[in-house]
């Protein structure tokens, strides 16, 4: 019965597959499609970046950041690594952006963008420095390596291959990253923990059920 269904399905899709084969012969090949996709993702990333910098409103800037993350995820897809693309969305859009939103939500929503200020000269200089430093590293690297690049068709990376690499060859780096994250987490817990005794003193224990019990007795 399974085979019968499979045959019916191939019969249904056969006209479209024939059209595909026809187009594959007469249209410019995969390379043009890849370049078009690349250009599209570059545009998405740039548009997101401009939106993030240019908006007068923090939440709209955040939306630009999300757009950029989507563009970067598309780049990963184009490089044949859907695993990294989905992880990019899961971690950056699903977790990091949501957490930043959590902080932004405490700002005022007036639509005039009160938090928007033109940068002072000093911060403009720092910003320029932060822009130039990565360029100073990346541009020479690109100039040196560009002539040696080879054009190869990219095969999708197998996720199991990725996992095997993480726990055999690159296990030290992998563990170091997890230690850094652990330290960051412990630091966050410590910072949140330290304020609690002060808070109890200031409010004279009104919100503390244990203390209220003591007062009552």
């Amino acid at each position, binding site marked *: 019965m*399974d085979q019968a*269904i499979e045959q019916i399905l191939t019969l249904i899709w056969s006209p479209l*597959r024939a*059209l595909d084969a026809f187009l594959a012969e007469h249209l410019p090949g995969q390379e043009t499609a890849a370049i078009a996709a690349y250009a599209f993702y570059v545009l998405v990333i740039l548009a997101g970046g401009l939106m993030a910098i240019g908006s007068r409103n923090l939440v709209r800037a955040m*939306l630009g950041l999300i757009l950029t993350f989507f563009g970067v995820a598309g780049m990963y897809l184009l490089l044949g690594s*859907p695993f990294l693309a989905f*992880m990019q969305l899961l971690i950056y859009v*699903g977790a990091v952006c949501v957490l930043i939103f959590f902080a932004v*939500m405490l700002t005022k929503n007036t639509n005039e963008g009160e938090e928007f200020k033109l940068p002072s000269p000093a911060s403009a200089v720092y910003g320029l420095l932060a822009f130039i430093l990565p360029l100073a590293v990346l541009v020479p690297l690109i100039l040196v390596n560009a002539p040696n690049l080879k054009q190869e068709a990219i095969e999708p990376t197998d996720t199991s291959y990725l996992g095997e690499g993480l726990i055999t060859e690159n296990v030290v780096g992998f563990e170091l990253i997890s230690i850094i994250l652990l330290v960051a987490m412990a630091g966050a817990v410590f910072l949140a923990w330290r304020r609690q005794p002060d808070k109890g003193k200031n409010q004279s224990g009104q919100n503390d059920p244990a203390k209220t019990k003591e007062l009552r007795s």
Partner: protein
Amino acid sequence: MDLSITSLAQIIIACLMVIGLMVANAVVMVYFERKTAGFIQRRPGPYEVGPRGTIQAICDSMKLLGKQLFIPGNVDWLLYFLAPVLAFFPVLLLFLPIPFGKFLTAMSVDEGILLILAFSGLGVISNILAGWSSNNKYGLLGAARAVSQSIAYEIPMIMSLLAVIFLSGSLNLSQIVEEQGSWPWQWNICVQPLAFFIYLVSLVGETNRAPFDLPEAESELTAGFHTEYSGMGFALFFLSEYANMLLVSFVCVTFFLGGWKGPFLDGFWWTFIKAYLIMMFIVWLRWTFPRVRFDQLLNINWKWLLPLSILNLWITAIVVKLL
């Protein structure tokens, strides 16, 4: 992923079918939920429109379609309109990798479950955008609750799914179903009962359903993040909420209850029967338990579900390594 008209046509047809499923699901579930609520609270529920009130839900949705889209003053109009759209459209994508039957998969992605988890993050963002942009204190409080709740419940959810992934060694949903047998004792629920329980609890938390519906608690927050939405804006939120319920039920069926496999005759009917049994369970929960307090909600997650899921993952890893 090959670029071809065939795959594009398959995805478009699948999206159209999913839209149909979403709308039909919302209409049927609204009627079913109101009737169940009536039955549990010993009242008739809807009974005026049509025989036993069956077309009540259709009339309600017609009313919603005809309503004016009202924009409150001082809202950020871009984000205000973007939020319902962002709630609705990613859900279409989430249904693509789900194997409804042996040949009923729109797009068999190797990282299927990752795709679902990645794009479900957009649902949270739409909730926040809606709450923030509508410039309303109830909306903002609802959005703040939605964030902390969904971040908290996402972790045990992923951990419990990870335990099943350890067993099957694949992120592809079709392959996870293939690993399971037709009879109930061959399903993953028998191997991973704790993971199933954790997933079932965090499923309710993730879809903002009672008893964990703090982001839209009527008695405290009017309607939470969608307080200021009317007409189609509200309808889109509503549709996506029910579609999300259906989606987590399908994922649960795929991971723990054998997917499209069932006793006697395998087929897509088993997926739907099992998924709707879980939906009935969610509805039953809503009308049986009172709403928890917000600190209780977070305590259940961080102090019980998370340690339990880590323990479960740990034991699973050791057993898989030893066998």
